[in-house]
């Protein structure tokens, strides 16, 4: 119950050990603690090699300022090493607390860490990743199935939807994305008009600029750019939010309260995005057209009246071809984000991995779906 002097006399000098052959003494000095003993532990084998086999060595510790378990551990290593070469190390000079520390380390027994669980061999890891892919696909189907089966009754009784949550999510995913989406699509409209204008001017065809801008913006750029920005911004936040809730067991808490996490967390987000993304896309299209027409009239001298007339001649079907894709994009982004979040299993690193995966997958699927629509529309002759 007496206080140990172990920590009273720290000197901040690294641990040192000197071999004095004529006296048969190992003279220790400095702090034999975790922070001070690193270099000595590294140099120990070389130092001990100087000692001839079969003699008796005294450990002199008068100048040893401070010892902790790391010091005791190194000292024990040293004793064992010497003993293997039939050298006796006399530790009687140590203070009582230092003996107790050494006894503590000895008493704890074998300290070599257990062997790590064996790593998979190449064949096994191929097998494991194959099984993972299958399990993942199955998992995705189960998740989609759960979302769909829970959504259908809600669609029949829309008043049971969590409209408060949905409106909050529309605010977060839609309203707050307006500035960035507006700026990006405006700039893309400007760039498309400017680049294509250069070539068209050589053929004196700048009058077709509005057609070009209209088709590109309405059919492809508006929906695609909006979806990609939203995938990066909102899809990732869905994954991170739900993933963190998994780590903190909030999702389990919902289950234990007999509240379906899918109904509480996933469906409102899916609905919110399916509503918000088309609205955002309309705004994006308008900004893209505005940017393009601005360049056409200001740089290529097109009359605003003519430009608007040409636009209105083509706009309608192109607009709907673009718009029809956006709820599908929204569905993909929201489902991927939520599913990635739900896949998190317990660790913080998992949340990061899931967030990344949600963005990569969402953008991938947005582009794949867009390509599929392009093929479909060309078959339909739209």
């Amino acid at each position, binding site marked *: 119950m007496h206080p140990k002097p172990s920590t009273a006399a720290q000197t901040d000098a690294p641990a040192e050990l000197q071999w004095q052959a004529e006296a048969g003494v190992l003279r220790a000095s400095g702090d034999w603690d975790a922070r001070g003993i690193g270099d000595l*532990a590294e140099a120990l084998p070389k130092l001990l090699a100087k000692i001839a086999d079969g003699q008796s060595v005294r450990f002199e510790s008068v100048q040893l300022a401070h010892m902790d378990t790391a010091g005791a551990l190194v000292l024990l290593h040293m004793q064992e090493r010497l003993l293997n070469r039939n050298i006796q190390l006399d530790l009687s000079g140590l203070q009582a607390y230092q003996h107790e520390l050494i006894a503590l380390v000895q008493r704890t027994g074998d300290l070599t860490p257990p062997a790590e669980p064996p790593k998979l061999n190449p064949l096994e890891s191929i097998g494991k990743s194959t099984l993972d892919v299958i399990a993942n696909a199955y998992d995705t189907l189960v998740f989609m199935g759960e979302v769909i089966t829970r959504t259908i009754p809600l669609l029949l009784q829309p008043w049971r939807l969590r409209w408060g949550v949905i409106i909050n999510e529309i605010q977060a995913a839609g309203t707050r994305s307006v500035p960035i989406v507006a700026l990006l699509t405006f700039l893309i409209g400007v760039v498309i008009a400017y680049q294509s204008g250069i070539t068209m001017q050589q053929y004196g065809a700048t009058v077709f600029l509005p057609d070009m801008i209209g088709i590109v913006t309405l059919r492809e750029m508006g929906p695609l750019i909006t979806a990609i920005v939203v995938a990066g911004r909102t899809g990732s936040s869905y994954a991170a939010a739900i993933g963190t809730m998994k780590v903190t067991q909030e999702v389990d808490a919902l289950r234990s309260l007999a509240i379906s996490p899918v109904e509480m967390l996933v469906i409102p987000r899916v609905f919110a995005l399916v509503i918000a993304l088309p609205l955002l896309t309309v705004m994006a299209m308008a900004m893209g057209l505005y940017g393009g027409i601005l360049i056409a009239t200001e740089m290529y001298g097109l009359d605003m009246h003519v430009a608007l007339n040409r636009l209105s001649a083509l706009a309608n079907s192109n607009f709907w071809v673009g718009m029809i894709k956006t709820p599908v994009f929204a569905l993909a982004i929201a489902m991927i984000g939520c599913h990635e979040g739900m896949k998190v299993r317990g660790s913080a690193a998992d949340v990061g991995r899931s967030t990344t995966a949600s963005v990569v997958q969402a953008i991938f699927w947005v582009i794949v779906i867009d390509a599929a629509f392009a093929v479909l529309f060309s078959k339909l002759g739209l």
Partner: protein
Amino acid sequence: MNRATPALEKRIETPLVIEVHGLTNRFGSKTVHENLDLCVAKGSVIALVGGSGTGKTVLLNNLVLLRPPTSGKIRLLGQDTDDLSYAQRQALQLRLGLMFQMGALFTSLSVLENVCLPLIEHTDLPKTVREELAMLKIRLAGLPADAAHKRPNELSGGMVKRAALARALALDPEILFLDEPTSGLDPVGARAFDALVNELRDLLGITVFQITHDLDSILHGVDKVAFLARKRVLAYAPAAELMQSKEPELVEYFNTRPLQE
């Protein structure tokens, strides 16, 4: 581990490792602590006790330098903590060990890697020595060796506490702060944990400062109890004395619980 306290009183010359003077913590208009004083002698095991919302964790966070107090002086291991440079502050923090209530183990690392992390970051120990030292702390904390390669999410609640203790002990701290170390443990496990803490104090000479609600720990596992109420340390004495006290908060705290004695 019936650590009787009288021996402590005789050691007047024992240096103080924690000195708190006039500490105030305020959040907006809510005052949690006002003019709080507390001194802890080296090598003692102290329990910080108080009802919910009396700011036990806030005080602990002050003491481990995670949150500066609104005003007041804290001296740790003889050093003033309010005007430390970054390097001094880090050096001081290495001499403190903190075990979080929920463990706060790094979820992406195994138990062994969790305990090794401070050793990797702050020492030059070769890998074998480092791992042996980590294993020593893991074994001392009462974990079986085969827990070393497990991830925190594969551990039971009691094992998480022990792994967190092992990490807090990694650098042989001089003061060990424990936030509700025995909450969520079964009674047998809780008593074993108290015994372990006392043993470590005896063997390594560390001072232990713990927040606890566990009446058995308060009565048998610690030297002195600091009782937080009325925004300060209302009483600071061995548990047996506190139970005799007539202060209404103390009477309420100690007498509303069934005693097995």
